[in-house]
């Protein structure tokens, strides 16, 4: 006899559960957590280096580096003297809740204010997997072209922040930043957009200020719940 069994279960429920566990751990530690995503080579690690250099005296920053292979990025970040842990996905094209959970024991979360998770370079899959972060932020470099919002909509939809990087290359590439912004905002009207060059440092100050504000708000929130 054939039976029809109703299920109605989220396929990603296992990941969602782990992300929720991570979120609780982050909350307990009073941390602000960003899941940083982009295609390969857009400048995630360079942005982290610049951010650490600018804010290290006032904000305690930790980094989780996600890569398919190698510890190259963690070594770069490690030179800055901040807490860093390298995750190798061994082929998987995105980080997931479980990988983050397993990496947390390598970090002293109570000694941090801000945790930046650098996802695997990929404009597709990372957007679908929550890690327990407070927000997703994405980078897009002008060298990649202003058509990317049309082709990879999900990532723009999920992100709170869009950092347009490598604006120093604008004279050499056929990229229209106005079009890029317009296309991104059509997907997500609430996107906070920064135009920067991690090479020259141009445009980074507003991003630093914005980050300071997020960390301060989180601290105020945590202090508020304690009293």
């Amino acid at each position, binding site marked *: 006899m*054939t039976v029809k069994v109703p*299920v*109605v*279960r989220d*396929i990603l*429920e296992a990941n969602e559960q782990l992300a929720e566990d991570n979120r609780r751990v982050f909350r307990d530690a009073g941390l602000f957590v960003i899941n940083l995503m982009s295609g390969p080579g857009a400048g995630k690690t360079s942005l982290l280096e610049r951010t650490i250099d600018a804010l290290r005296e006032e904000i305690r920053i930790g980094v989780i580096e996600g890569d398919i292979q190698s510890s190259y990025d963690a070594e770069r970040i490690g030179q800055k003297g901040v807490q860093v842990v390298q995750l190798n996905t061994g082929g998987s*094209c995105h980080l997931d809740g479980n990988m983050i959970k397993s990496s947390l024991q390598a970090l002293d979360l109570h000694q941090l204010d801000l945790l930046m998770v650098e996802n695997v370079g990929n404009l597709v899959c990372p957007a*679908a997997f929550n890690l327990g972060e407070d927000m997703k932020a994405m980078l897009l470099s002008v060298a990649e072209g202003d058509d990317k919002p049309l082709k990879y909509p999900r990532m723009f*939809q999920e992100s709170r922040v869009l950092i347009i990087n490598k604006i120093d290359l604008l004279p050499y590439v056929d990229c229209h930043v106005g079009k890029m912004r317009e296309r991104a905002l059509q997907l997500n009207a609430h996107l906070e957009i920064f135009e920067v060059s991690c090479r020259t440092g141009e445009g980074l100050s507003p991003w630093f200020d914005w980050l300071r504000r997020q960390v301060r708000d989180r601290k105020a929130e945590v202090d508020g719940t304690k009293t």
Partner: protein
Amino acid sequence: MHEMSIAQSVVDIILQESQNHQVNRVLSVAVKVGELSAVESESLKFCFNFLTKGTLAEGAKLEIERVQVTCRCQGCGSNFTVQGLVFVCPSCQSSEVEMVTGRELSVESFEAE
């Protein structure tokens, strides 16, 4: 690109539910896939067929229902289907819109004997 891990989660759910319902063989599995989930149907089927080999879901048919991206306008309250990935209300032009469907990724039901 991540169809293999999605397919593995589908298989895990199905095998777990099969055990709960004490069935011998799974004939078909119905899943919902939102258009914005970045999951490709043919690739998902391929991975599903591969992963079910040697299990009681071997040979089961994966039936995929694609779900359109729809939004509700927070300005005027109307519901609309998103065309060409422009998230702007066609009635009042507001971009204060909330996505209602399009991110789905769920196992709805399965048929078994």
